[in-house]
């Protein structure tokens, strides 16, 4: 019997997915459970396994297409079996869904990857050792003409730089933009271009919080079998502060601002090929042990490529701690649709003045990036000093 493969719904919030790559071609035999297609959602890369055994008779949507969940994407059947009819290649996405626009944009981007140059411009560039990708075309739609190449060649000559012969040029390594990298590129560009960021920084005395960590770490380790980190504690601190400052836990929705009921704190974690942001859901209601164990579980899943959308979705605020890399201070880019992100630098002993005396204290820079459409300087300042207050006097966590 023919089996129709549909775009899977990988999480509650997933509305559509991008077909990144077909792992089987039309006509290939596929066994149930064998990886069939690579799908990317807003948050992750996913290898979808074949729901049936048979021959991949028809691919309805090629790689690169954005398709709404439950849309048929392929048909698996035996040789000669009659196939159900589906319209191919037209994703049935509701008009008001925001993603089609993004899809169009990414298609256009791919279109632009080809360098438009006239044939003789290409030939001349090769002869003169000019890299076409460095030129801006003066022709229609940016087509590089022979004049553009000759101008570039002349410039190279007058500036005394020997034109590099292609054969002698060292080969650059190319990393195709796909999967998580591509999503990061798109989302960060979008955020940095479309969200008016502003940054507030404060240097925080870490002695008290370090003291707390020392006191409770064994207990946490005993209960959850995980090692407590400063990041875990910071999640707790941030969640507590967010509760007092709901405007920081909100999102921009065009003509309105939504104050979110849930406090879900994401933690940026570096991976070999990018980064993920595990989300501690309802962090304000979780104990330190629960927070530490949640983060560790998701990270482990990420390293094995087994993330679910819930693990990385639904964040309302992000924490990026770069202390372990020895960085003093970071100004992070907001992770949309969130409105703020906190960047934490390393803790280092410094001379500070206290009551007219120079003392040595472990200090760390905290930087808050906020979306100025929602958050004003004063609100962000109050939130950041609240965090400082808790860290320097952890007893405020109890208040």
């Amino acid at each position, binding site marked *: 019997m023919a089996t129709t493969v549909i775009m899977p719904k990988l999480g509650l919030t997933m509305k559509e997915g991008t077909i990144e790559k077909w792992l089987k071609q039309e006509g290939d035999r596929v066994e149930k459970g064998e990886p069939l297609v690579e799908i990317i959602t807003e948050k992750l890369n996913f290898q979808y396994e074949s729901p049936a055994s048979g021959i991949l008779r028809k691919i309805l949507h090629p790689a690169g297409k954005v398709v709404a969940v439950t849309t048929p994407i392929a048909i698996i059947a035996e040789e000669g079996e009659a196939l159900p009819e589906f319209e191919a290649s037209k994703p049935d996405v509701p008009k008001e869904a925001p993603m089609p626009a993004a899809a169009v944009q990414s298609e256009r981007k791919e279109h632009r990857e080809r360098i438009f140059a*006239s*044939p*003789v*411009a290409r030939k001349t560039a090769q002869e003169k050792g000019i890299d076409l990708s460095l030129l801006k075309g*003066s*022709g*229609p739609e940016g087509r590089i*003409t022979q*004049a553009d190449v000759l101008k570039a060649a002349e410039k190279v000559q007058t500036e005394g730089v020997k034109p590099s012969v292609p054969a002698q040029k060292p080969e650059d390594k190319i990393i195709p933009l796909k999967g998580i990298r591509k999503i990061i590129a798109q989302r960060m560009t979008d955020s940095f271009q479309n969200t008016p960021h502003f940054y507030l920084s404060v240097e925080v005395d870490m002695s008290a919080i370090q003291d707390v960590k020392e006191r409770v770490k064994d207990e946490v380790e005993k209960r959850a079998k995980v090692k407590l980190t400063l990041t875990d504690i910071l999640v707790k601190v941030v969640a507590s502060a967010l509760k007092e400052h709901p405007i920081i836990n909100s999102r921009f929705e065009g003509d309105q601002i939504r104050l979110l009921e849930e406090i879900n704190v994401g933690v940026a974690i570096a991976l070999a090929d990018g980064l993920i942001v595990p989300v501690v859901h309802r962090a304000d209601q979780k104990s330190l042990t629960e927070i530490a164990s949640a983060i560790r579980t998701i990270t482990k899943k990420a390293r094995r490529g087994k993330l679910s959308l819930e693990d990385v979705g639904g964040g309302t605020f992000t924490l990026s701690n770069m202390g372990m890399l020895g960085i003093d201070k970071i100004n992070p880019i907001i992770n949309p649709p969130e409105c703020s992100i906190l960047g934490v630098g390393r803790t280092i002993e410094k001379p500070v003045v206290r009551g007219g005396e120079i003392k040595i204290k472990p200090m760390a820079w905290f930087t808050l990036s906020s979306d100025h459409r929602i958050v004003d300087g004063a609100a962000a300042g109050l939130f950041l000093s609240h965090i400082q207050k808790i860290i320097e006097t952890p007893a405020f966590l109890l208040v």
Partner: protein
Amino acid sequence: MPEITFVESLRMTLKEEMERDPSLMLIGEDIGRYGGIFGVTKGLLEEFGPHRVRSTPISESAIIGSALGAAMTGIRTVAELMYIDFTPVAMDQIVNQTAKMSYMSGGKAKVPMVIRTQEGGGRGNAAQHSQCLEALFLHIPGLKIVMPSNPYDARGLLKTAIRDDNPVMFIEHKLLYATKGSIPDGEYLIPFGQADIKRKGKDVTIVAISYMVTVALKAAARLAEEGIEAEVIDLRTLVPLDFDAILQSVRNTNRVVIVHEGCRTGGIGAEIAAQIQEEAFDYLDAPVARVGALNVPIPYSEPLENAVIPDEDDIVRAAKKVLYRG
């Protein structure tokens, strides 16, 4: 070197060739006493008699069929069809018989025959008397196609056509008949397949045929005022085609505009553009441009006819486009 008109040049050539070859015969409607509707055969009946200058009833099929039969039996013949618009009436004779006889007889039958006809708009002759149909014959292997653009070429090419042992479509343009040019005293022949570079230039190649050569030269003069040096090539014959001349020019200019009066769709420009991209792709700095008539029957109304047929402005615009200017 006296200046004579295109019509006089043709008449003089026919007369000379009839004197040279006593078997040469002319056949067509009204070519005897009336002298042909454009006067090309005026006086030839009186000089050579009704056996060699034969007026026929109004039957294009009969004209071509008779001419073909005569040619195959050794009587060199020049048939005249008043308008190229009437060639479709005789299409079976031209396409299935004339073009194929040599081949189907394994070369035993020669077809020393010229079909003289004229085409083109610009005279308010409307849809059935203004067409440019050379591309129809371009698609038929076995026919040579000659399209002179001036009195000098008309003479040299007509002589070559008459002396050729294969069927030749000799396509004139009605707006050229009154144009004048100087002709040298002695005899000369222009071989087929040799384009004429009418104007040298390094910026853009304009390939033109027939009356459009005149228009292209005017356009080139205008372009020169703006500092654009256009090279104008008169193909003179479409079959055989002097593609080397085009190739050589394109390699220098990297840009081509092909100009013909027939409609763009399926015109000679399409064929030449295709060959250019096959043979000179790496030399192109811009897509090959074609200037031709709009894809509609030629309107009777003068303003509409002018709008449909390509003119100087169209050529200037196309040249600038391939030069990425304006």
